[in-house]
């Protein structure tokens, strides 16, 4: 009887192992922790749609990345931290292949995974956002925020306000209110906003909008009482159009409401209607069909009835362009790793790729991404690598953004002090042993 059971079990195990799906040789796997439903779906569908379209284009035109076909699978996070972490655990391996990295487009999810990513040797990617001290690659080797960090963003916004006022010296005596989303992401900028105003002799006030931000009467009445010269909007999702509508209803001039990197999508301004006319926001990636790669995606996918966006009018929109930009950065990191380690790279090697990005104008032109992706050069001590942005202004009558400024640099000097202090704090409280980025052996070792 026992022998019979053993044989049956063996037969079943053999049958199961014969049918269990295993990824083919010549494929690389990248998880896709999307959010296509819920209050933040506009951001999620645009961003992940852009990434998927770029990966699809690369599979179609170049056979993937470095000759390896790109495979991905989706997991719905709903922009919920707990679900996002569940998705990470579910997706970190797929059909026998380890994920090359994990990009959830959420401060909450990416921050929750900093330690886990390091443990699993999977880089956590947070394009243009994230836990700011994560810039220090010596302390956070598996965490990357390519583009700009929160402090770059707010110092660039302050510099732009200075430009609008005719010079930084004219900021003296001005009042700036930071209207922020009541979340980890929103609060990240509070302390630095006060530091910036201290430096430039202006006064500042931070006002929190409780999640999700669909009722802002008290906050805007408070702003009306404070009579600020400018309001910096650090919003997300529905909070953005509501801020514009409520602000205008309360008589605040919309041109003095300046949006941050997550308050700059067409999906944020269109719902606000005419209230949004003249609203200005920061961006690292201009909107519209601004690069060859976008034209290629349209010609080879959307014109052939493919493409991830259901609504074709969103091609060239802010979040979608950001997604294409993220796709370009992702695959460039894989290519950098492949150049050193060969085509079949693992996640630790791709981490090294993210740490040695050199997307200069020449390389961006080769990739067809010049005009869309800013120059980004990362290294062991700097996991951000961009630190510059432009501004754009919404033209309601033409339903489009117009560029309102040239590239403006972040105040890296001011932000470095606070980043270093936070990194030292993490070393002490989280028991992290930092690498020595000045030691070539430690710097070049991919398997940290």
């Amino acid at each position, binding site marked *: 009887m026992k022998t019979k059971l053993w044989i049956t079990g063996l037969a079943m195990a053999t049958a199961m192992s014969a049918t269990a799906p295993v990824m083919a040789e010549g494929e690389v796997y990248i998880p896709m922790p999307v959010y296509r439903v*819920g209050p933040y779906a506009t951001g999620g569908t645009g961003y992940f749609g852009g990434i998927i379209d770029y990966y699809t284009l690369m599979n179609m035109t170049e056979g993937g990345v470095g000759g390896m076909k790109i495979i991905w699978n989706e997991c719905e996070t709903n922009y919920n931290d707990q679900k996002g972490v569940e998705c990470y655990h579910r997706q970190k391996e797929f059909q026998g292949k380890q994920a090359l990295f994990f990009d959830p487009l959420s401060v909450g999810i990416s921050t929750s995974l900093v330690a886990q990513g390091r443990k699993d040797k999977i880089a956590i990617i947070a394009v243009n956002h994230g836990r700011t001290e994560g810039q220090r690659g010596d302390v956070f080797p598996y965490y990357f925020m390519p583009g700009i960090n929160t402090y770059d963003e707010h110092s660039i916004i302050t510099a732009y306000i200075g430009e609008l006022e005719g010079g930084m010296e004219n900021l003296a005596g001005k009042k700036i209110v930071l209207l922020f989303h009541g979340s980890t992401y929103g609060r990240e900028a509070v302390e630095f906003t006060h530091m910036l105003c201290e430096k430039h002799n202006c006064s500042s006030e931070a006002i*929190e909008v*409780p999640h999700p931000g669909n*009722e802002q*009467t008290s906050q805007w*009445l408070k702003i009306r009482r404070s009579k600020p010269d400018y309001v910096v909007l650090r919003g997300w999702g529905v909070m953005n*159009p509501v801020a514009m509508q409520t602000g205008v209803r309360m008589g605040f001039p919309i041109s003095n409401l300046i949006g941050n990197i997550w308050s700059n999508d067409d999906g944020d301004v269109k*719902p606000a209607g005419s209230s949004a006319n003249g609203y200005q926001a920061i961006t690292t990636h201009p909107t519209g069909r601004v690069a060859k790669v976008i034209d290629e995606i349209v010609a080879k996918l959307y014109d052939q009835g493919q493409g991830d966006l259901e*609504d074709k009018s969103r091609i060239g929109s802010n979040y979608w362009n950001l997604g294409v930009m993220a796709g370009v950065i992702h695959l460039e990191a894989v290519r950098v790793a492949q150049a050193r380690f060969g085509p079949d790279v693992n996640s630790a090697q791709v981490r090294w790729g993210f740490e040695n990005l050199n997307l200069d104008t020449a390389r961006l032109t080769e990739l067809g991404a010049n005009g869309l992706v800013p120059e980004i050069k990362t290294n062991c001590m700097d996991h951000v690598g961009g630190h510059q942005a432009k501004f754009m202004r919404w033209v309601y009558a033409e339903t489009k953004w117009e560029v309102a400024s040239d590239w403006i640099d972040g105040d890296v000097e001011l932000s470095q002090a606070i980043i270093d202090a936070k990194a030292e704090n993490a070393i002490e409280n989280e028991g992290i042993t930092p690498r020595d980025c000045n030691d070539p052996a430690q710097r070049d070792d991919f398997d940290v």
Partner: protein
Amino acid sequence: MGFDWVFFTELIVGGLMSGVMYSLVAVGFVLIYKSSGIFNFAQGTMLLFAALTFVKLTEGSVNFWVALAVSTGTMVVFGILVERFMMRPLANQSLLSLFMATVGLAILIEGLAQYMWDSAIHGLQLADFLDLALLDPVNMTIFVVDYIEWLDILISKFDIFATIVAGSMILILAVFFQKTRTGMSLRAVSDDHLAAMAVGIPLSRVWALVWAVTGIIALIAGLLWAERVSVSFTLVEAVLKALPVILIGGLTSIPGAIVGGLIIGVGEKLGEIYLGDLIGVQGIETWFSYFIALIFLLFRPSGLFGLKTIERV
């Protein structure tokens, strides 16, 4: 510096206007509860579904009035379907079963709305539509997003309009429940299904009617909310604002929903500004409204206008 009375008055006015919006959602709860004794968990998703249907039609270049008529028809059909496929099979089941059915209904509508339409944020410039539809022939703009400044106090014109609409709707409902035969049938059904059926009140027809009326109220509330906060899935969370309102006003009273809404609207604004400043914490209005409701419940467990239940032992 002395007390800022202008700001205080603006805060009260802003709170009252927000309160009216909360009342609009709360009335939907009250209507279903009064007629069937069910706490309708799907109220928020009905708001979203109604507003999304309207806005998607207008985005598809459908005329304002046609879109309004089609959305109203959709919500009436929705009410009839709910009665036929949910209420009727569950008649005489426990209230908990009926409540759980509305939870299921909420999840179903949420999924259906995303499947039928989409999950993007849509703007609804109702004020522009109204100006265009009602006033264009005489070349006037009254409702377009604008404000009045009177004695330095700022009041949004659209908020005044929303208050008038909400007030009229509530007045009509109050008369309907108190003075009409159908309204009285609804109240009788709410008191005792079996007794109402025994005296010849057609339960199915009454339930279908009340769900259809609730659907229309969801449409009106959804459109007014959408003007302020856009049409997105956060409209569902309007329900969270209405819960403390019905806790204060009582689940069975339409005037209670109004008074509760105004108390919560003003209370949360005062709490956010003055208490928030005092304790040095911001963003408290979300939970502060529930704190106010709990205080009321300690003294009036059935709410200010709710019926006291007396049971013989």
